[in-house]
Every structure is written in C-alpha cells, then in structure tokens.
C-alpha cells in the first residue's frame, strides 16, 4: 500500500462514482475493468472491491429514498428472498469459473448496460418524467422473484449492483411506478452485495489497500454526482459513459484474447 496508488485509486473511484450517479448507474461497471486492466488486480479482488463500494453507495442513497418514503421496503424485502439466494450461489461458484469466461460475461454485461442506457435516452425524449406516485397494485411476484434471482446472481458473479435487470422488470411487468422501482432496487442492492461480499471476504478477496481508497472515492463522487445531476445535460454524460464503457469492453476483449487477464 503506497501513498501514490492510494491517491490514484481514490481518483478512479471518484470519477466512476460521480459519472455513475449522474446517469443512475453504480460505479461497478467502470471500476471492475479498470482495476483488472490497469491495476492488474486478480478478477475476484476487483469484484470484491466493487461489491464494497456498491454497498456504500446503495446504503447512502437509499437512506434518502427511505426517508422520503419512495422505496417500498415490503416489496424490497420480499424480492431480497431471491436476490440473496442468487448472490450467494453465484459467489460460491464464482471462483471455480474460468477467469476468461467471467471476463466474457462481463463484456456481455457492459454491452447490455450500454444498450439499456441508449434505449432509455431514446424513450426519455418523449416521455414526461413522473413526479407524483399514485396507488399501484404489485403483480407477478413469481416473475419478480425470478428476475431478482438473476440480478443477484450477476451481482455475486460480476460485482455489479444488478439494478438494470430489476428496475425494468418491476416497472414494465410488476406494475411498480418507475420512481418506486428505482428506489426499491437501490434499497435491495446493499443486502444483495453484502451477501456475496461476505463470501469474497472469507476467501481473502477484499483487500483493504484497494477497498479503502476506492470506497472513499466512490462515496464522495456519488454525492457530488447526485448534486450535479439536475444541473447537467445528462445526455452528454450518458454519451461519455457509453463511450468509456465501450472502450473498456474492447480493452477487456483484447486482454482476454492475449490471455493476460489475471
């Protein structure tokens, strides 16, 4: 642990956290490839570090959502029945999956995330954002539980939050208003990430010298991002983030092709 590497990690966390908060994504999708590619961290350690930063941002932002009564904690707790199972099972099998396959799954996940962002930007042009939440009936619990299981498994396997899987299912299929779906998903992410983080911790894949500066950076970055978001043209930030994601995905593909992923 050196002072220089500590500072660089804090800056990386800060950038990922602030970009993510403006767009509404966790920083995990940037943090993990950066740690694996440029800090030459073994993939499980990059995932462990990301999981702890995901817990920090989810906890801080959901405290605000809960206080404003936007998150539906009953729905969240119900769906946690399956996110935690998915997260635990995935974290248990993660170390026996070949790093190269994990890397390819991660690239696929970056692709899916970039696609979701683009689609969201496209539909946001016409749709008014909802301000008031009216009464709603939650339907299709089995589907929600299944989607949450998948989201949990992605979280345990790849170290991401999995909001991009849960939010559309809650909003489109379960009848949950978008604002509530986003807040509830965020509320669940802390428990989901913690479940797999314990397993990574037990295996020694949560390294203080990486996690501490990263969490401080991501935490302060996401606070700044959340403050700046209403004042920024989110479209430019979304394009920037999509560009960064595509760049990292290509770099990871090249690294996997040359066999250099730790």
């Amino acid at each position, binding site marked *: 642990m050196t002072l220089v590497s*500590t500072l660089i990690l804090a800056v990386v966390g800060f950038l990922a956290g602030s970009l993510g908060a403006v767009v509404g994504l966790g920083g995990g999708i940037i943090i993990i490839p950066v740690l694996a590619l440029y800090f030459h961290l073994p993939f499980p350690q990059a995932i462990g570090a990301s999981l702890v930063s995901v817990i920090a941002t989810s906890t801080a932002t959901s405290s605000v959502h809960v206080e404003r009564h936007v998150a539906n904690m009953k729905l969240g707790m119900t769906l946690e029945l399956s996110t935690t199972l998915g997260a635990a099972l995935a974290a248990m099998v993660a170390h026996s999956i070949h790093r190269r396959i994990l890397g390819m799954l991660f690239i696929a996940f970056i692709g899916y995330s970039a696609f979701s962002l683009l689609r969201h930007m496209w539909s946001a042009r016409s749709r008014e954002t909802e301000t008031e939440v009216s009464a709603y009936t*939650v339907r299709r619990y089995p589907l929600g539980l299944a989607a949450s299981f998948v989201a949990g498994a992605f979280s345990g396997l790849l170290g991401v939050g999995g909001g991009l899987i849960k939010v559309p299912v809650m909003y489109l299929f379960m009848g949950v208003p978008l604002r509530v779906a986003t807040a509830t998903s965020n509320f669940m992410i802390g428990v989901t990430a913690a479940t797999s983080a314990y397993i990574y911790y*037990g295996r020694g894949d949560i390294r203080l010298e990486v996690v501490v500066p990263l*969490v401080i950076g991501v935490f302060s970055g996401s606070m700044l991002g959340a403050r700046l978001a209403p004042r920024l043209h989110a479209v430019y930030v979304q394009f920037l983030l999509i560009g960064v994601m595509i760049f990292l995905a290509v770099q990871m593909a090249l690294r996997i092709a040359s066999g250099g992923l730790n």
Partner: protein
Amino acid sequence: MAYEKFTPENQGSKSTDRWVALILRIGAYGSVALLLIGLLLWAAVSGLLGMRVMRVGVLLLMATPVLRIITLLFLYLHARDWKYALISFTVLLIVIVSSILGIKL
C-alpha cells in the same frame, strides 16, 4: 402470493422509514468516516493502527445491510405484521447461512 395494493401511504409507516433511514445513515457515514480517519492515521501516524481502524470501517460498512434487515424484523414484529416479519427473518437466515457455507466451501 396474492396481489398487493400499495399507496404512497401504506408502503411503510413514517416511524419505520425514519428508523431504517437512521440505521442506513449511521452505517454509511460512520463507516466512511472511519475509513478516512484510518487512512490519515496510516499515512501520518502509524500504519498498524491505521489499518485496524480501516478494517473496523470496512466491517461496519459490510454489516450495515444486515443491521437494516434486523431493524426491519423488529419493526415488523412490533407492528404485529407477521407476514413481513417472517420474510425478513428468512432473508436474514439466507444471508447468515450462505455466508457461513460460502466461506467454508
């Protein structure tokens, strides 16, 4: 599971939301404060002491989601909402059992 109708009012109660928000806030800000203090101690005073404070901070952060489940379990029990008390208890059980199993495997 039956369809469930929610309104902004019955999603939770004001006091439940306040308690949970408080636990989350203490966990998030308290642990990040410990990480900062630990980092400063590590850089300026003593590496060993700094590392210890940082470890406590990371453990507090990782424990916060579970503290949140326990808080909700007690709040649901207090409100005699047996269905959600049982759900909270089951989630708690899954998290504890899987982390013990996962570390041993």
